[in-house]
Protein backbone atom coordinates (compact mmCIF):
# COMPACT_ATOMS: atom_id res chain seq x y z
CA UNK A 1 0.00 0.00 0.00
CA UNK A 2 1.41 3.34 -1.12
CA UNK A 3 1.17 5.92 1.66
CA UNK A 4 3.28 8.60 -0.01
CA UNK A 5 1.59 12.00 0.15
CA UNK A 6 2.12 13.40 -3.36
CA UNK A 7 1.25 16.91 -2.18
CA UNK A 8 4.44 16.77 -0.11
CA UNK A 9 6.61 15.17 -2.82
CA UNK A 10 8.73 17.26 -5.22
CA UNK A 11 7.63 17.12 -8.85
CA UNK A 12 9.11 14.70 -11.33
CA UNK A 13 12.36 15.59 -13.06
CA UNK A 14 10.55 16.05 -16.41
CA UNK A 15 8.43 18.89 -14.98
CA UNK A 16 5.10 17.09 -15.16
CA UNK A 17 2.73 16.84 -12.20
CA UNK A 18 -0.90 16.01 -11.44
CA UNK A 19 -3.80 18.05 -10.24
CA UNK A 20 -6.66 16.75 -8.16
CA UNK A 21 -10.04 18.44 -8.38
CA UNK A 22 -11.27 18.70 -4.82
CA UNK A 23 -14.99 18.51 -5.58
CA UNK A 24 -14.98 15.42 -7.78
CA UNK A 25 -11.71 13.86 -6.74
CA UNK A 26 -10.73 13.61 -10.40
CA UNK A 27 -7.01 13.54 -11.09
CA UNK A 28 -5.53 15.04 -14.27
CA UNK A 29 -1.97 14.85 -15.56
CA UNK A 30 -0.29 18.17 -16.48
CA UNK A 31 2.50 17.59 -18.98
CA UNK A 32 5.75 19.49 -19.14
CA UNK A 33 4.60 21.69 -22.04
CA UNK A 34 1.03 21.97 -20.83
CA UNK A 35 -0.60 24.53 -18.55
CA UNK A 36 -3.01 23.55 -15.80
CA UNK A 37 -5.66 25.48 -17.73
CA UNK A 38 -4.97 23.44 -20.88
CA UNK A 39 -5.10 20.16 -18.97
CA UNK A 40 -8.49 21.19 -17.55
CA UNK A 41 -9.80 22.25 -20.96
CA UNK A 42 -8.58 19.03 -22.57
CA UNK A 43 -10.51 17.10 -19.91
CA UNK A 44 -13.66 19.03 -20.75
CA UNK A 45 -13.66 21.44 -17.84
CA UNK A 46 -14.70 24.98 -18.59
CA UNK A 47 -12.36 26.94 -16.33
CA UNK A 48 -12.64 30.74 -16.45
CA UNK A 49 -9.72 32.57 -18.03
CA UNK A 50 -8.96 35.67 -20.08
CA UNK A 51 -5.42 36.89 -20.69
CA UNK A 52 -3.81 33.44 -20.38
CA UNK A 53 -0.51 35.01 -19.36
CA UNK A 54 -0.82 35.68 -15.65
CA UNK A 55 -1.86 39.31 -15.79
CA UNK A 56 -5.62 39.61 -15.41
CA UNK A 57 -6.48 37.34 -12.46
CA UNK A 58 -9.55 35.73 -14.06
CA UNK A 59 -8.35 32.15 -13.47
CA UNK A 60 -7.44 32.70 -9.82
CA UNK A 61 -8.13 29.43 -7.98
CA UNK A 62 -7.71 28.30 -4.35
CA UNK A 63 -5.08 25.71 -3.59
CA UNK A 64 -6.21 23.07 -1.05
CA UNK A 65 -2.96 21.10 -0.82
CA UNK A 66 0.44 20.98 -2.48
CA UNK A 67 2.77 23.89 -3.23
CA UNK A 68 2.30 26.11 -6.29
CA UNK A 69 5.14 27.32 -8.48
CA UNK A 70 4.04 30.87 -9.35
CA UNK A 71 4.75 32.30 -12.80
CA UNK A 72 2.14 35.06 -12.85
CA UNK A 73 2.47 38.81 -12.40
CA UNK A 74 -0.96 39.24 -10.80
CA UNK A 75 -0.34 38.07 -7.24
CA UNK A 76 1.89 40.10 -4.97
CA UNK A 77 5.10 38.41 -3.76
CA UNK A 78 3.46 38.07 -0.32
CA UNK A 79 0.41 36.34 -1.79
CA UNK A 80 2.62 34.05 -3.83
CA UNK A 81 4.60 33.17 -0.73
CA UNK A 82 1.41 32.23 1.09
CA UNK A 83 0.71 29.62 -1.57
CA UNK A 84 -3.06 29.29 -1.00
CA UNK A 85 -4.06 30.32 -4.51
CA UNK A 86 -2.78 29.97 -8.06
CA UNK A 87 -3.26 31.29 -11.59
CA UNK A 88 -4.22 28.27 -13.66
CA UNK A 89 -3.06 29.77 -16.96
CA UNK A 90 0.65 30.00 -16.31
CA UNK A 91 1.68 28.80 -12.86
CA UNK A 92 2.76 25.27 -12.10
CA UNK A 93 3.47 23.05 -9.11
CA UNK A 94 6.46 22.42 -6.90
CA UNK A 95 4.87 19.21 -5.63
CA UNK A 96 3.91 16.08 -7.56
CA UNK A 97 0.26 16.76 -6.81
CA UNK A 98 -1.69 19.96 -6.43
CA UNK A 99 -5.20 19.80 -4.98
CA UNK A 100 -7.35 22.61 -6.35
CA UNK A 101 -10.70 23.96 -5.16
CA UNK A 102 -12.46 22.96 -8.37
Amino acid at each position, binding site marked *: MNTTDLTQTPIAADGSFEIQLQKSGQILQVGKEQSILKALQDAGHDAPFSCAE*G*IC*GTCLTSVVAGKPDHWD*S*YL*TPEEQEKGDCIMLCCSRSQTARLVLDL
Partner: protein
Amino acid sequence: MFIKNTWYVACTLTELEALGDKPLGRTICNEKMAFFKGPDGQVAAVEDFCPHRGAPLSLGKVCKGHLQCGYHGLEMGVDGKTVQMPGQRVRGFPAIKSYAVVERYGFVWVWPGDQAKADVAQMPVFEFFDNPAWAYGGGLYHVQADYRLMIDNLMDLTHETYVHANSIGQPEIDETPCTTTVEGDQVILQRHMEGIQAPPFWQMAMSANGLDPQAKVDRWQICRFTPPSHIMIDVGVALAGKGGFDAAPEHKAYSVVVDFITPETESSHWYHWGMARQFKPDDAALTDKIRAGQGGIFNEDMEMLQLQQANISKWPDRKLLMLNIDSGGVQSRRIIDRWLALENTTGVTA
Protein backbone atom coordinates in the same frame (compact mmCIF):
# COMPACT_ATOMS: atom_id res chain seq x y z
CA MET B 1 13.16 56.98 -43.62
CA PHE B 2 13.84 59.54 -40.93
CA ILE B 3 16.68 60.43 -38.62
CA LYS B 4 15.16 59.29 -35.33
CA ASN B 5 17.92 59.77 -32.79
CA THR B 6 17.50 63.49 -32.59
CA TRP B 7 15.23 66.20 -31.22
CA TYR B 8 12.19 67.33 -33.17
CA VAL B 9 9.65 69.99 -32.34
CA ALA B 10 6.42 68.16 -31.50
CA CYS B 11 4.19 71.11 -30.64
CA THR B 12 4.19 74.44 -28.88
CA LEU B 13 3.48 74.49 -25.16
CA THR B 14 0.61 76.82 -26.01
CA GLU B 15 -1.00 74.25 -28.29
CA LEU B 16 -0.80 71.54 -25.62
CA GLU B 17 -2.01 73.81 -22.83
CA ALA B 18 -4.95 75.03 -24.92
CA LEU B 19 -6.31 71.47 -24.83
CA GLY B 20 -6.91 71.71 -21.07
CA ASP B 21 -7.34 68.21 -19.64
CA LYS B 22 -7.10 66.59 -23.07
CA PRO B 23 -3.83 65.06 -24.28
CA LEU B 24 -2.34 65.83 -27.68
CA GLY B 25 -2.12 62.95 -30.14
CA ARG B 26 0.56 63.42 -32.76
CA THR B 27 2.48 61.13 -35.09
CA ILE B 28 6.17 61.94 -35.41
CA CYS B 29 8.49 59.90 -37.62
CA ASN B 30 5.74 57.29 -37.91
CA GLU B 31 5.61 56.96 -34.10
CA LYS B 32 2.12 57.55 -32.74
CA MET B 33 2.50 59.57 -29.57
CA ALA B 34 0.28 61.07 -26.89
CA PHE B 35 1.58 64.19 -25.13
CA PHE B 36 0.35 65.26 -21.71
CA LYS B 37 1.50 66.92 -18.53
CA GLY B 38 2.63 64.53 -15.79
CA PRO B 39 2.11 64.89 -12.03
CA ASP B 40 5.02 67.35 -11.79
CA GLY B 41 3.61 69.51 -14.57
CA GLN B 42 6.33 68.40 -16.99
CA VAL B 43 5.29 67.34 -20.47
CA ALA B 44 5.56 63.61 -21.14
CA ALA B 45 5.03 61.52 -24.26
CA VAL B 46 3.94 57.89 -24.46
CA GLU B 47 2.90 55.60 -27.26
CA ASP B 48 -0.65 56.40 -28.35
CA PHE B 49 -1.74 52.82 -27.70
CA CYS B 50 -3.56 51.54 -24.64
CA PRO B 51 -1.97 48.26 -23.51
CA HIS B 52 -5.46 46.97 -22.67
CA ARG B 53 -7.27 46.95 -26.01
CA GLY B 54 -5.17 49.14 -28.27
CA ALA B 55 -7.35 52.24 -28.09
CA PRO B 56 -5.56 55.54 -28.81
CA LEU B 57 -4.75 57.02 -25.42
CA SER B 58 -4.94 60.48 -26.97
CA LEU B 59 -8.73 60.10 -27.03
CA GLY B 60 -8.74 60.07 -23.22
CA LYS B 61 -8.11 62.78 -20.68
CA VAL B 62 -5.49 63.75 -18.17
CA CYS B 63 -6.32 63.08 -14.50
CA LYS B 64 -3.81 64.23 -11.89
CA GLY B 65 -0.91 63.76 -14.25
CA HIS B 66 -2.01 60.37 -15.52
CA LEU B 67 -3.40 59.75 -18.97
CA GLN B 68 -6.78 58.06 -18.58
CA CYS B 69 -7.83 55.91 -21.53
CA GLY B 70 -11.14 57.01 -22.98
CA TYR B 71 -12.28 53.41 -23.48
CA HIS B 72 -12.12 51.64 -20.10
CA GLY B 73 -10.37 54.10 -17.82
CA LEU B 74 -6.91 52.57 -17.66
CA GLU B 75 -4.56 55.22 -16.28
CA MET B 76 -1.17 55.48 -17.92
CA GLY B 77 1.87 57.03 -16.25
CA VAL B 78 4.55 59.20 -17.83
CA ASP B 79 6.94 56.23 -17.96
CA GLY B 80 4.60 54.05 -20.03
CA LYS B 81 3.59 51.91 -17.04
CA THR B 82 -0.05 51.53 -16.11
CA VAL B 83 -0.77 53.26 -12.82
CA GLN B 84 -4.23 51.93 -12.12
CA MET B 85 -7.47 50.74 -13.67
CA PRO B 86 -10.91 50.27 -12.12
CA GLY B 87 -11.40 46.70 -10.87
CA GLN B 88 -7.97 45.55 -12.03
CA ARG B 89 -4.59 44.71 -10.67
CA VAL B 90 -2.16 46.37 -13.06
CA ARG B 91 1.22 45.18 -11.83
CA GLY B 92 1.60 42.67 -14.63
CA PHE B 93 0.43 44.99 -17.42
CA PRO B 94 3.09 45.31 -20.10
CA ALA B 95 4.63 48.78 -20.40
CA ILE B 96 4.25 50.87 -23.52
CA LYS B 97 6.96 53.04 -25.04
CA SER B 98 7.64 56.42 -23.52
CA TYR B 99 9.61 59.16 -25.23
CA ALA B 100 12.15 61.65 -23.93
CA VAL B 101 10.75 65.16 -23.96
CA VAL B 102 12.33 68.57 -23.40
CA GLU B 103 10.40 71.83 -22.99
CA ARG B 104 12.44 74.67 -24.41
CA TYR B 105 11.90 77.95 -26.27
CA GLY B 106 8.14 77.57 -25.94
CA PHE B 107 8.20 74.25 -27.79
CA VAL B 108 7.88 70.63 -26.75
CA TRP B 109 10.79 68.67 -28.26
CA VAL B 110 10.72 64.90 -28.54
CA TRP B 111 13.33 62.21 -29.28
CA PRO B 112 11.50 59.56 -31.36
CA GLY B 113 14.36 57.04 -31.67
CA ASP B 114 16.40 54.95 -29.24
CA GLN B 115 15.48 56.30 -25.81
CA ALA B 116 18.77 55.12 -24.30
CA LYS B 117 20.51 57.59 -26.60
CA ALA B 118 18.30 60.61 -25.81
CA ASP B 119 20.67 63.42 -24.91
CA VAL B 120 19.58 66.88 -23.77
CA ALA B 121 23.06 68.18 -24.60
CA GLN B 122 22.20 67.66 -28.27
CA MET B 123 19.36 70.19 -28.14
CA PRO B 124 19.96 73.00 -30.63
CA VAL B 125 20.65 76.47 -29.23
CA PHE B 126 19.00 79.64 -30.51
CA GLU B 127 19.88 83.14 -29.36
CA PHE B 128 16.56 84.71 -30.33
CA PHE B 129 14.27 82.73 -28.03
CA ASP B 130 13.76 83.86 -24.42
CA ASN B 131 15.70 86.99 -25.31
CA PRO B 132 14.14 90.44 -24.69
CA ALA B 133 16.12 91.92 -27.58
CA TRP B 134 14.12 89.73 -29.95
CA ALA B 135 10.45 89.15 -30.71
CA TYR B 136 9.10 85.89 -32.05
CA GLY B 137 5.81 84.97 -33.67
CA GLY B 138 4.92 81.86 -35.58
CA GLY B 139 2.44 79.15 -36.42
CA LEU B 140 1.96 75.52 -37.40
CA TYR B 141 0.92 73.91 -40.66
CA HIS B 142 0.19 70.24 -41.23
CA VAL B 143 1.54 69.64 -44.70
CA GLN B 144 0.65 66.61 -46.80
CA ALA B 145 4.08 66.32 -48.35
CA ASP B 146 7.44 64.64 -47.71
CA TYR B 147 9.33 66.83 -45.23
CA ARG B 148 12.25 66.95 -47.62
CA LEU B 149 10.15 68.84 -50.14
CA MET B 150 9.88 71.58 -47.51
CA ILE B 151 13.65 71.52 -47.08
CA ASP B 152 14.07 71.85 -50.86
CA ASN B 153 11.62 74.75 -50.82
CA LEU B 154 13.37 76.67 -48.06
CA MET B 155 16.85 75.99 -49.36
CA ASP B 156 15.93 77.45 -52.75
CA LEU B 157 14.26 80.83 -52.56
CA THR B 158 14.01 81.44 -56.29
CA HIS B 159 10.47 80.14 -55.92
CA GLU B 160 9.59 83.38 -54.13
CA THR B 161 9.33 85.19 -57.44
CA TYR B 162 6.54 82.90 -58.57
CA VAL B 163 4.86 81.45 -55.49
CA HIS B 164 4.99 84.69 -53.51
CA ALA B 165 4.73 87.23 -56.33
CA ASN B 166 2.65 89.65 -54.26
CA SER B 167 4.64 89.69 -51.04
CA ILE B 168 8.33 88.81 -51.08
CA GLY B 169 8.86 87.77 -54.68
CA GLN B 170 10.71 89.93 -57.17
CA PRO B 171 12.54 89.23 -60.44
CA GLU B 172 15.93 90.22 -59.01
CA ILE B 173 15.93 86.94 -57.04
CA ASP B 174 16.12 84.93 -60.25
CA GLU B 175 18.65 87.28 -61.73
CA THR B 176 21.04 87.09 -58.78
CA PRO B 177 23.05 83.89 -58.50
CA CYS B 178 23.23 82.15 -55.15
CA THR B 179 26.17 80.41 -53.51
CA THR B 180 25.97 77.16 -51.58
CA THR B 181 28.57 76.16 -49.03
CA VAL B 182 28.76 73.19 -46.69
CA GLU B 183 30.41 73.58 -43.31
CA GLY B 184 30.41 70.27 -41.49
CA ASP B 185 26.75 69.40 -40.98
CA GLN B 186 25.51 72.84 -41.95
CA VAL B 187 24.47 73.91 -45.43
CA ILE B 188 24.50 77.65 -46.13
CA LEU B 189 22.87 79.06 -49.21
CA GLN B 190 23.00 82.79 -49.75
CA ARG B 191 21.97 85.47 -52.17
CA HIS B 192 22.69 89.19 -51.97
CA MET B 193 20.79 91.64 -54.16
CA GLU B 194 21.94 95.24 -54.40
CA GLY B 195 20.22 98.52 -55.18
CA ILE B 196 16.73 97.13 -55.66
CA GLN B 197 13.20 98.13 -54.72
CA ALA B 198 11.95 96.31 -51.63
CA PRO B 199 9.00 93.96 -52.24
CA PRO B 200 5.70 94.60 -50.37
CA PHE B 201 6.44 92.55 -47.23
CA TRP B 202 9.75 94.31 -46.72
CA GLN B 203 8.25 97.72 -47.45
CA MET B 204 5.88 97.02 -44.58
CA ALA B 205 8.79 96.03 -42.37
CA MET B 206 10.77 99.15 -43.37
CA SER B 207 7.84 101.37 -42.49
CA ALA B 208 7.46 99.59 -39.17
CA ASN B 209 11.12 100.26 -38.47
CA GLY B 210 10.96 103.94 -39.45
CA LEU B 211 12.62 103.58 -42.87
CA ASP B 212 11.37 105.00 -46.16
CA PRO B 213 9.72 102.02 -47.85
CA GLN B 214 10.38 103.47 -51.30
CA ALA B 215 14.15 103.80 -50.78
CA LYS B 216 16.47 101.54 -52.74
CA VAL B 217 17.77 98.65 -50.67
CA ASP B 218 20.29 95.87 -50.55
CA ARG B 219 18.47 92.63 -49.81
CA TRP B 220 19.82 89.33 -48.52
CA GLN B 221 18.71 85.76 -47.96
CA ILE B 222 21.01 83.44 -46.01
CA CYS B 223 19.51 79.99 -45.52
CA ARG B 224 21.11 77.69 -42.96
CA PHE B 225 20.15 74.01 -42.80
CA THR B 226 21.16 71.84 -39.86
CA PRO B 227 20.05 68.26 -39.25
CA PRO B 228 17.65 66.75 -38.76
CA SER B 229 15.55 69.43 -40.50
CA HIS B 230 15.90 72.86 -38.93
CA ILE B 231 16.28 75.81 -41.28
CA MET B 232 17.05 79.32 -40.11
CA ILE B 233 17.01 82.02 -42.76
CA ASP B 234 18.53 85.45 -42.24
CA VAL B 235 16.40 87.76 -44.33
CA GLY B 236 16.25 91.51 -44.58
CA VAL B 237 16.81 94.72 -46.42
CA ALA B 238 19.15 97.63 -45.65
CA LEU B 239 19.20 101.04 -47.23
CA ALA B 240 21.36 100.68 -50.32
CA GLY B 241 25.07 101.09 -49.77
CA LYS B 242 24.92 100.84 -45.97
CA GLY B 243 26.53 97.42 -45.79
CA GLY B 244 23.67 95.06 -46.52
CA PHE B 245 23.51 92.24 -43.95
CA ASP B 246 26.24 93.97 -41.94
CA ALA B 247 24.56 97.39 -41.96
CA ALA B 248 23.90 99.15 -38.65
CA PRO B 249 20.50 98.34 -37.12
CA GLU B 250 19.05 101.79 -37.83
CA HIS B 251 19.52 101.26 -41.58
CA LYS B 252 17.82 97.91 -41.93
CA ALA B 253 14.80 95.73 -41.32
CA TYR B 254 16.03 92.29 -40.52
CA SER B 255 14.75 89.02 -39.16
CA VAL B 256 15.30 85.28 -39.00
CA VAL B 257 12.77 82.97 -40.58
CA VAL B 258 12.55 79.99 -38.24
CA ASP B 259 11.56 76.62 -39.68
CA PHE B 260 11.23 73.47 -37.61
CA ILE B 261 10.23 70.67 -39.95
CA THR B 262 9.05 67.50 -38.25
CA PRO B 263 8.30 64.39 -40.33
CA GLU B 264 4.96 62.76 -39.61
CA THR B 265 4.90 60.00 -42.23
CA GLU B 266 6.82 59.47 -45.48
CA SER B 267 4.44 61.88 -47.18
CA SER B 268 3.42 64.36 -44.48
CA HIS B 269 4.99 66.63 -41.93
CA TRP B 270 4.39 69.17 -39.18
CA TYR B 271 5.75 72.55 -40.07
CA HIS B 272 6.41 75.02 -37.26
CA TRP B 273 7.27 78.28 -38.93
CA GLY B 274 7.97 81.66 -37.42
CA MET B 275 9.91 84.86 -37.56
CA ALA B 276 12.32 86.26 -35.00
CA ARG B 277 13.16 89.93 -35.29
CA GLN B 278 15.24 92.51 -33.50
CA PHE B 279 13.41 95.64 -34.60
CA LYS B 280 10.60 96.85 -32.33
CA PRO B 281 10.63 93.65 -30.23
CA ASP B 282 8.03 95.07 -27.83
CA ASP B 283 5.48 95.80 -30.55
CA ALA B 284 3.00 92.93 -30.13
CA ALA B 285 0.72 94.33 -32.84
CA LEU B 286 3.63 94.20 -35.28
CA THR B 287 4.34 90.61 -34.26
CA ASP B 288 0.73 89.74 -35.08
CA LYS B 289 0.89 91.58 -38.38
CA ILE B 290 4.09 89.79 -39.39
CA ARG B 291 2.66 86.44 -38.30
CA ALA B 292 -0.44 87.02 -40.44
CA GLY B 293 1.70 88.03 -43.41
CA GLN B 294 4.08 85.11 -43.03
CA GLY B 295 1.19 82.70 -42.49
CA GLY B 296 -0.35 83.82 -45.77
CA ILE B 297 2.95 83.49 -47.60
CA PHE B 298 3.72 80.05 -46.20
CA ASN B 299 0.23 78.89 -47.01
CA GLU B 300 1.16 79.48 -50.66
CA ASP B 301 4.12 77.12 -50.18
CA MET B 302 1.92 74.53 -48.52
CA GLU B 303 -0.51 74.51 -51.44
CA MET B 304 2.34 74.06 -53.90
CA LEU B 305 4.06 71.31 -51.90
CA GLN B 306 0.88 69.29 -51.41
CA LEU B 307 0.10 69.31 -55.09
CA GLN B 308 3.75 68.57 -55.89
CA GLN B 309 3.57 65.57 -53.52
CA ALA B 310 0.36 64.39 -55.16
CA ASN B 311 2.10 64.49 -58.53
CA ILE B 312 5.18 62.68 -57.26
CA SER B 313 3.03 60.04 -55.56
CA LYS B 314 1.13 59.49 -58.77
CA TRP B 315 4.33 59.03 -60.77
CA PRO B 316 6.88 57.79 -58.22
CA ASP B 317 9.32 56.58 -60.86
CA ARG B 318 9.62 59.94 -62.60
CA LYS B 319 13.11 61.32 -62.16
CA LEU B 320 13.25 64.96 -61.09
CA LEU B 321 15.75 67.57 -62.20
CA MET B 322 18.30 68.96 -59.79
CA LEU B 323 19.35 72.35 -61.17
CA ASN B 324 21.89 74.87 -59.91
CA ILE B 325 19.17 76.55 -57.86
CA ASP B 326 18.53 73.21 -56.11
CA SER B 327 22.03 72.75 -54.72
CA GLY B 328 20.98 73.82 -51.20
CA GLY B 329 18.38 71.06 -51.05
CA VAL B 330 20.74 68.55 -52.64
CA GLN B 331 23.43 69.24 -50.05
CA SER B 332 20.92 69.15 -47.18
CA ARG B 333 19.61 65.77 -48.34
CA ARG B 334 23.20 64.47 -48.50
CA ILE B 335 23.67 65.34 -44.84
CA ILE B 336 20.37 63.68 -43.92
CA ASP B 337 21.44 60.57 -45.85
CA ARG B 338 24.80 60.54 -44.09
CA TRP B 339 23.14 60.76 -40.67
CA LEU B 340 20.68 58.04 -41.65
CA ALA B 341 23.50 55.74 -42.76
CA LEU B 342 25.30 56.36 -39.48
CA GLU B 343 22.16 55.70 -37.46
CA ASN B 344 21.44 52.47 -39.29
CA THR B 345 24.97 51.08 -39.17
CA THR B 346 25.08 51.54 -35.40
CA GLY B 347 22.06 49.24 -35.23
CA VAL B 348 19.60 51.90 -34.22
CA THR B 349 16.18 51.60 -35.67
CA ALA B 350 13.05 52.18 -33.70
